[in-house]
C-alpha cells in the first residue's frame, strides 16, 4: 500500500525528472509543478476520469511489468496543439489539425511524464516498472477499455495533476496510474 505522503515524495522527484526531460525535448526552460498527488479508490478514480472536463486529448498505455494497470494522460486540445508546436520548433498556433507526427508527439509526452513519475512510485513499492506503447483514445474509448478489461476492479489509482510551463506557455496535464495495490 502506498501512502499519500510517499506519493507526494515521489511527485517531487518525478517533477524534477519530468522538467529535465521536457527541457531536453523542447530545448526550452521547463517548469513542472505537481498541483496534486494522491491515492484514490476505485470509485473516486472513475469519477476523476469522468470529470476531465474540456480535456479532449487522452493518451493511455499499459503497465507491462511491476504493477498491473494503465497510465493515462489528459490535456485540452488547445494545450495539445501548443505542445506539438513547441516540441516541433514551430511558432505557436501553427498546428490546427494534428497529423500522425503530431499525435506521436503527444504520445511521447505521456511516455516521458509517465516514466518520470512512475519510476519513483515503483521505487517506493520496490518494483521495476515498464510502460508499454502509448496510444491516443477518445474519452468514450478509454471508458470502454477500462470497462472491458475490468482494470479498475478492486484497484487503487495514483493521481498526479501537473502544471507545466514551457516558454511562458502554461499547460495543465492530468496523469493517472491505475494499478493493483498490495495489501
Amino acid at each position, binding site marked *: 500500500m502506498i501512502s499519500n505522503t510517499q506519493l507526494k515524495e515521489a511527485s517531487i522527484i518525478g517533477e524534477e525528472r519530468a522538467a529535465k526531460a521536457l527541457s531536453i*525535448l523542447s530545448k526550452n526552460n521547463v517548469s513542472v509543478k505537481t498541483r496534486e498527488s494522491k491515492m484514490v479508490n476505485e470509485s473516486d478514480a472513475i469519477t476523476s476520469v469522468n470529470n476531465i472536463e474540456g480535456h479532449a486529448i487522452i493518451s493511455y498505455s499499459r503497465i507491462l511489468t511491476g504493477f498491473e494497470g494503465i497510465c493515462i494522460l489528459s490535456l485540452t486540445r488547445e494545450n495539445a496543439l501548443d505542445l506539438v508546436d513547441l516540441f516541433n520548433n514551430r511558432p505557436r498556433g501553427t498546428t490546427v489539425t494534428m497529423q500522425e507526427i503530431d499525435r506521436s508527439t503527444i504520445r511521447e509526452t505521456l511516455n516521458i511524464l509517465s516514466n518520470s513519475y512512475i519510476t519513483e512510485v515503483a521505487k517506493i513499492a520496490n518494483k521495476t516498472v515498464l510502460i508499454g506503447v502509448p496510444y491516443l483514445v477518445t474519452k468514450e474509448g478509454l471508458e470502454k477499455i477500462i470497462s472491458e478489461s475490468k482494470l479498475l476492479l478492486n484497484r487503487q489509482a495514483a493521481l498526479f495533476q501537473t502544471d507545466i510551463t514551457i516558454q511562458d506557455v502554461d499547460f495543465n496535464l492530468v496523469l493517472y496510474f491505475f494499478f493493483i495495490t498490495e495489501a
Partner: protein
Amino acid sequence: MTKVLVTDDSAFMRKVLVDILNKNGYTETIEAQDGKEAIEKFNSEKPDLVLLDVIMPEMDGLEVLKQIVPLGAKAIVISAVGQETMMTQAKDFGAKGYIIKPFDESKVLEEIKKVL
C-alpha cells in the same frame, strides 16, 4: 558513407533522431516503425548502425537485437528514463551502446562515435 537505420514506433522520435543525424553528417538514414520492419530493412539495406527503441508494438527492441546481432549488426538501444534495467538485457543481447530518452544531441553523437 555511414548508413543508419532508425527504429522507433514514434514518428516524432524518429524525426528528432534523423534531424540530429543529418545535421551532423550522417545523411544516409533509413527509418523503421516497429521491430519487424527493422529486421526487414536491416536485411535489405545492410545499415552500418542501428538505433533501436526498446518498447515497440509487434516486436520489441530486445527481440530485434537477438535476430540482427548474430548477423553482424552494430546496435545502440534507446529507451525512456526509468527503463535502465533494460540496459543490462540489451547488452547481454549484444547492444554496443545505450541512450536514455529524451536525449541531447551530444549524447547521441558520443554513443555513435564509440560504436563506429
